């Protein structure tokens, strides 16, 4: 299986720059996920790799071969589209085999591959139906089958699950992951859904405004986001951010903000203490909530006094939205005993997992 290389790739539409100096190496057999919000350039990058969009500057290589100027059909890549892109007037069998017939693959070989893909994706009984007669999940599998029978060098997925309902999405996510591991085909997968990215990707590339924010294994992005964007993008519910100032107190470093006073773990502080405003980042699951009996005050150390504004019970976990001073925060807890709206709570932040950002870049060391 080949590797894919982007070298200083840029894409401009007129005066608008969509992708800026994009550099990335996708390893052989890897499943790499490009994730970002709308307008982040992720789909454009995928379409440039597919050959559906021209590259303004830079080079794209598949292994050693420069494919930058090649037509889609000459790149030996296959793509699964968000709305599947199945030909509505052709049967499933014709949809699967068309690409091979156009490449003049021998008939027996076409039959073998169609059967192989149909077996693997449980499409056998659907081969003579038209796409309109299939459910969303089935259409999705046909689209994957069409990519598989081509036996391409690289698979490209463009938000393949976003048209499916939640249950089916989870199921297809598992199927795609399993399939990719079995076939070991180098894969680039685009999504805006960070859960999809975290569960599927060997590595994840987080994009914003056409630039790479961070590349890493899912857990690296979660544990050690390089900047505030990545910290806020990866993880659900998203990380809490509190703007404040640092102060040295009794040999330790104290973070102070309206309603949030918190002692930073010295081992995780940067070598030189940043001056000026900083942002504290803490994930909802890195907080513990104590419900206070009426009248008692918030405890002293590592504690944040809050007032509950909303409690969402999800079953196993619950989301507690609370105000600490002027700051609205969210804690994700598994408590049996939950506070009610308006109750006073004491929130303990896990200092091992707290992040510190200066000018949106993380300065605290990784946990």
């Amino acid at each position, binding site marked *: 299986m080949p590797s894919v290389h982007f070298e200083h790739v840029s894409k401009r539409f007129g005066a608008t720059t969509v992708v800026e100096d994009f550099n990335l190496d996708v390893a052989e057999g890897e499943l790499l996920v490009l994730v970002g919000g709308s307008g982040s350039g992720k789909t454009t990058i995928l379409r440039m790799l*597919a050959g559906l969009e021209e590259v303004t500057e830079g080079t794209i290589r598949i292994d050693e071969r420069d494919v930058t100027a090649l037509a*889609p059909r000459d790149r030996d*890549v296959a*793509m699964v589209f*968000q709305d599947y*892109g199945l030909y*509505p007037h052709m049967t499933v069998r014709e949809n699967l085999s068309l690409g091979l017939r156009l490449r003049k693959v021998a008939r027996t070989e076409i039959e073998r591959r169609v059967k192989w893909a149909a077996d693997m994706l449980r499409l056998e009984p659907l081969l003579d139906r038209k796409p*309109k007669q299939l459910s969303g999940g089935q259409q999705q599998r046909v689209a994957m089958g069409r990519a598989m029978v081509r036996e391409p060098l690289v698979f490209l997925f463009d938000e393949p699950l976003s048209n499916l309902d939640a249950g089916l999405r989870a199921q297809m996510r598992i199927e795609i992951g399993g399939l990719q591991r079995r076939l070991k085909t180098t894969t680039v997968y685009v999504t805006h859904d960070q859960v999809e990215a975290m569960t599927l990707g060997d590595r994840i590339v987080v994009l914003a405004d056409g630039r790479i924010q961070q590349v890493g294994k899912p857990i690296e992005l979660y544990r050690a986001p390089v900047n505030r964007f990545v910290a806020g993008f990866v993880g659900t519910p998203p990380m809490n951010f509190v703007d404040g100032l640092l102060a040295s107190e009794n040999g330790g470093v104290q973070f102070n903000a309206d309603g949030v006073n918190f002692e930073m773990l010295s081992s995780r502080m940067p070598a030189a203490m940043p001056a000026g405003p900083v942002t504290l980042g803490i994930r909802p699951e890195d907080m513990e909530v104590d419900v206070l009996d009426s009248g008692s005050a918030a405890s002293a150390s590592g504690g944040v006094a809050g007032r509950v504004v909303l409690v969402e019970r999800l079953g196993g976990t619950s989301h507690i939205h609370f105000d600490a001073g002027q700051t609205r925060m969210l804690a994700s807890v598994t408590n049996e005993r939950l506070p009610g709206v308006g109750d006073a709570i004491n929130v303990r932040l896990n200092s091992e997992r707290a992040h510190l950002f200066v000018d949106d870049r993380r300065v605290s060391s990784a946990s």
Partner: protein
Amino acid sequence: MKTLRRIGLYAALTIAALTFIYPFLWMASATFKPLAEVGTLALFPTHATLDNYRTMWARAPFGRALINSLIVASTITIAVLVFGSITAYAMARLRFRGRPALNAATMGVLLVPGQLTLIPLYTLIVQLGWIDTYAALIVPYLFNATAILMMRQFFLQIPQSLIDSARMDGMGEMRILFTIFWPLSKPVLSIVAIFTFMGSWNEVLWPLLVVREQHLMTLPQLLTVFSLGGGAGSIGVSLASAMVLVVPVVIAYAFLQRNFIESMAGSGVKG
């Protein structure tokens, strides 16, 4: 009460339908009536005869005119579909410099009435030496702005992912147009085909200008020359020649009517 209303409704609709159908049926039956009977309103001739057709056929080369009309109308229809869809595809789905200008120009052509271009076009044909040729009848009609815009509008609705898939599958643009877009665009292609064919089939003025040789005349042209020139002699013969003109269009309509009605009802393609 309900049944009564229904009966009333059907009666009204039947009368309305008859007002459309009766004149046509009367014409059809009149062509089989002898001269003495033509004046009556009856739908069935008491002494049916083919004399009107025989006379018509004997007096002017209607067979040849029928073939001429078929050649001209079919060539124009095919050309409008092929060239028009190629243009429409480019206008709807390809990015190139000058596309907005091309759209505007095509739209602009619609605003120019045919009568205005008639004389310049005629002069052009004369200078090209195309008077009394098929080229004079066919070439000016090979492209049609209305058809292009109708197809463009339809093509805009076809999902981009189909084009992308086809490109990934290895198709070129022409192949995408004819193997993906055409099958999905049957409604609009049918309506363009019918309108173009009928328009060309019924055209009288232009052939009268550029064709004088009887053996090159189209059917409506010959019919006009024949009837107005007094060649028919009787109303029965005139009507018989009109029948020859109408029948092919009715047949074409019968074949394409399902798609025709579909596209008139404004259906689109769903990806």
